[in-house]
């Protein structure tokens, strides 16, 4: 039963994707895509409800799927080779050849064929699957409305949406493939599909810069795929293991740490950690739903999934400590870079990389509360970041800019979207929202490791600064603005409303969420449970956090403010103080820009040095194997 459901969640989107590409008619395509999304969503719920966890299940179709994947590997790599010539980027060719040759050698001479059980299902896979199928589907729905508007702006004669949605469905199938595969060769195949699909999505607009950035994304991720493949080959060659469950059952050893660090390196490229961050920054040229997908529920989260998966193999090693340090470094470095930006999407991009760094750092700390923090961060970040990207996309289509300085006074133009953006940003940066609760847990868990703790604390303070002023900008207005509901396509509205609801509800129900799906995972990892959760109270051996009183206080404040506004007739509206000058309500008045600290932070220069440092840290991780 479980294996069939998993199979559905992987195969259906992929097959449907092949069909979607042939559908030209908008209505048919939309029904078709929605139906697929519904199936993906329902199958994820069904797996969550029915599967007996944790379990490793086989499938009767193993043979045929394995053959398809073996052929698929070469088709994929040859296609990237072709892409390399088309976009004239030799680096892609180098890395695809670097994969084809070892792959062929490995499969012909080293790998002994044997049937293994196909799918590994535990709470972590379930969590990932739910994130992909819920957040991902909402983003895809949003794309319905967004892409229509987008193509109108681009003045396309012939719609290219069939291709767009086909790739998105393919992406979902591949993500589910990564999440559930037990055979590492399968995981590798789906991993490569996600790299290729993100190339196709980033280059969707076919502009020169889009193709350039897409090919950069491809070669960096191909390097990651190469590293993953090397890891798998070494693993098989020296230990004879090719499945996840075998790896997780074996004891930590030298021999295991070498392939694991190659796989983790592959994950670093996919999660755009320094010095690989440039591909994710470049990806923002793509239509907004693509950015939202890459940044929140798919792609980068696949990397976090892999590192989380492998975490038990390096628990308690020096290597783990270096991974924590590396993640913490990326966290603070990209937070500093985000501080210097006024481009909304770029701020979000840097903040994504930073948060992924935070997750990786937590995984590196590798205690039960740190792993809990990492899993919670993964969930909350997916929801909030998807929401914010969709907000920026909506704002951009309305005001024609993604610069946060141009968003001043947005509350008068798009009140609903502004309020949703406001809540979205809050959910990323202040307590009692889930992100902050997880950050609280991560910092407390990190405190044993002084350097990591200091970096995380400094980075968090910087995060507060660059997000606070963004909220300040969108709310900034010299008078009270009228509230109205702006016009939006219904799918866009649905996506925004549902994501903001999920963000709030999940934060309120974080203890239940923890007990339902995170705690069993920690149990399964055979770690001592140091985190307990009862209604509204999260407790670890280091401290405790009460969530409800904080929500209550905020709710009370909001209510008091509403009552004041509603009941007092003596409120006098006045003009902002401008030292006696007449306040000019147009944009010609005196205005103040945010402090971007150009005298301290030079993005280009700083990136260069930070890349060097991060390279040294990666070398240290590999050196950590020996210690």
């Amino acid at each position: 039963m479980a294996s069939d459901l998993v199979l559905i969640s992987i195969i259906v989107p992929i097959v449907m994707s092949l069909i979607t590409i042939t559908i030209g008619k908008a209505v048919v395509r939309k029904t078709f895509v929605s139906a697929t999304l519904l199936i993906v969503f329902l199958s994820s719920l069904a797996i969550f409800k029915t599967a007996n966890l944790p379990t490793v299940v086989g499938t009767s179709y193993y043979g045929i799927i394995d053959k398809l994947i073996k052929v698929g590997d070469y088709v994929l790599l040859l296609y990237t080779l072709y892409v390399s010539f088309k976009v004239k980027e030799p680096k892609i060719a180098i890395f695809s050849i670097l994969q084809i040759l070892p792959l062929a050698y490995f499969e012909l001479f080293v790998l002994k064929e044997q049937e293994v059980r196909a799918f590994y299902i535990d709470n972590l896979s379930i969590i990932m699957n739910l994130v992909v199928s819920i957040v991902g589907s909402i983003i895809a729905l949003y794309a319905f409305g967004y892409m229509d508007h987008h193509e109108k702006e681009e003045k396309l004669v012939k719609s290219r949406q069939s291709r767009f949605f086909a790739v998105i469905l393919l992406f979902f199938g591949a993500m589910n493939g990564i999440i559930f595969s037990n055979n590492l060769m399968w995981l590798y195949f789906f991993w490569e599909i996600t790299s290729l699909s993100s190339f196709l999505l980033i280059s969707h607009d076919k502009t020169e810069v889009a193709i350039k950035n897409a090919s950069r994304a491809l070669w960096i991720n191909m390097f990651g795929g190469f590293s993953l493949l090397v890891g798998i080959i070494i693993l098989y060659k020296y230990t004879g293991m090719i499945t996840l469950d075998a790896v997780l059952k074996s004891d930590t050893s030298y021999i295991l740490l070498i392939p694991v660090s190659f796989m983790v390196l592959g994950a670093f490229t996919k999660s755009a950690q320094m010095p690989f961050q440039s591909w994710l920054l470049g990806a923002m040229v793509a239509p907004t739903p693509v950015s939202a997908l890459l940044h929140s529920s798919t792609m980068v989260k696949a990397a976090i999934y892999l590192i989380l998966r492998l975490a038990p193999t390096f628990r308690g090693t020096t290597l783990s400590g270096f991974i924590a340090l590396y993640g913490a470094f990326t966290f603070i470095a990209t937070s500093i870079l985000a501080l210097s930006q006024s481009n909304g999407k770029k701020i979000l991009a840097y903040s994504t990389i930073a948060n992924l760094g935070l997750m990786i750092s937590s995984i590196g700390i590798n205690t039960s509360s740190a792993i809990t923090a990492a899993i919670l961060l993964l969930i909350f970040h997916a929801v909030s970041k998807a929401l914010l990207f969709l907000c920026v996309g909506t704002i951009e289509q309305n005001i024609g800019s993604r610069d946060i300085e141009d968003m001043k006074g947005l509350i008068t133009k798009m009140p609903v979207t502004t309020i949703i953006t406001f809540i979205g940003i809050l959910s990323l940066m202040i307590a009692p929202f889930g992100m902050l609760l997880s950050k609280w847990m991560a910092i407390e868990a990190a405190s044993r490791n002084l350097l990591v703790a200091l970096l995380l604390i400094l980075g968090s303070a910087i995060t507060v600064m660059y997000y606070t002023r963004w909220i300040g900008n969108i709310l900034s207005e010299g008078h009270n603005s009228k509230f109205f509901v702006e016009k939006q396509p219904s799918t866009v509205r649905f996506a925004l409303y549902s994501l903001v609801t999920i963000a709030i509800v999940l934060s309120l129900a974080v203890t239940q969420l923890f007990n339902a799906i995170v705690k069993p995972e920690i149990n399964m990892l055979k770690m001592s449970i140091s985190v307990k959760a009862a209604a509204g109270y999260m407790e670890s051996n280091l401290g405790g956090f009460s969530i409800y009183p904080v929500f209550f206080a905020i709710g009370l404040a909001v209510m008091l403010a509403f009552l004041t506004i509603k009941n007092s007739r003596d409120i006098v509206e006045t003009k902002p103080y401008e030292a006696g000058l007449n306040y000019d309500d147009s944009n010609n008045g005196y205005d103040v820009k945010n402090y971007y600290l150009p005298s301290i932070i030079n993005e280009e220069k700083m990136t260069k040095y930070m890349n060097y440092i991060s390279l040294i840290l990666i070398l240290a991780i590999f050196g950590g194997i020996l210690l």
Partner: protein
Amino acid sequence: MTWADYLIFAAAVILTPLIGGLITGLDRKVTALIQGRYGPPVLQPFYDVVKLLSKEKMIVNDFQIFAAYIYLLSAILSVGFFAIKADLLMIIFIMSIGLVFYVIGALATRSPYSQVGAQRELMQMLAYEPLLIFVLIGMYYVAGSFNLHDIMSHGRLLLDLPLIFVVLSLVLDIKIKKSPFDFSTSEHAHQELVRGILTDYAGPYLALIEIADWYELVLLLAMLAIFWSQNLVIGALISLFVFFLDIIVDNISARMTLKWMLSFSWIVGISFTVLNIAYLYFSNVSR
């Protein structure tokens, strides 16, 4: 939470503003004496707040009302949690909710004065918030927990964490915006910023912010006091002494630049924390 906890919570919430107002009054008196003036009565801050509360409700936009209320309530909540000895890191996180809204409230009006003030307040937060958490990390190294209850059972933190104590004193100085850190409101009015971040907060809402400031002042002083939790009277005297030093420094120094503040606080914060924790290792205090 037990009934006793609720009572302590309530008592702290009621008493704190009285103490905070009194300390602010003393501050004004001492400052006046240093400057050779007679100064206002010690109860002047209370008169001011009562008067502000009864004034006309002047606002630029509704968001200011939200901001003022959330600032006050989060300050109250953090003081209450402190009184029942909860997790200190949580308390700091709750405190920062209010600060974020305080800044947004000022940014939400279009006055250049309040906007510059808000930007500077953000820089001040960037300067002291990480330091505040460094202090907690230091306490964790001694007590093995972030819970105030466990931290206070230690008794004489000051002896183990002298440098961390200095860091917290620095935090206090930046937090209450005394010179040389009087960036965001220009504490001594009639300067180029008018009242900075406070410029567009008026009447009752300014009063709410004043009261919230009292709560936060007392919270920080209390954090200084728990460095001698064995005898809290001595602890309170120590923290009042630090406050007195801040007043002296306020009167003998001029405002520096933002860049200086940021590098000064981070360098002092990081190096003192690391040195102090290294000292703990060598003296085998760390758990």
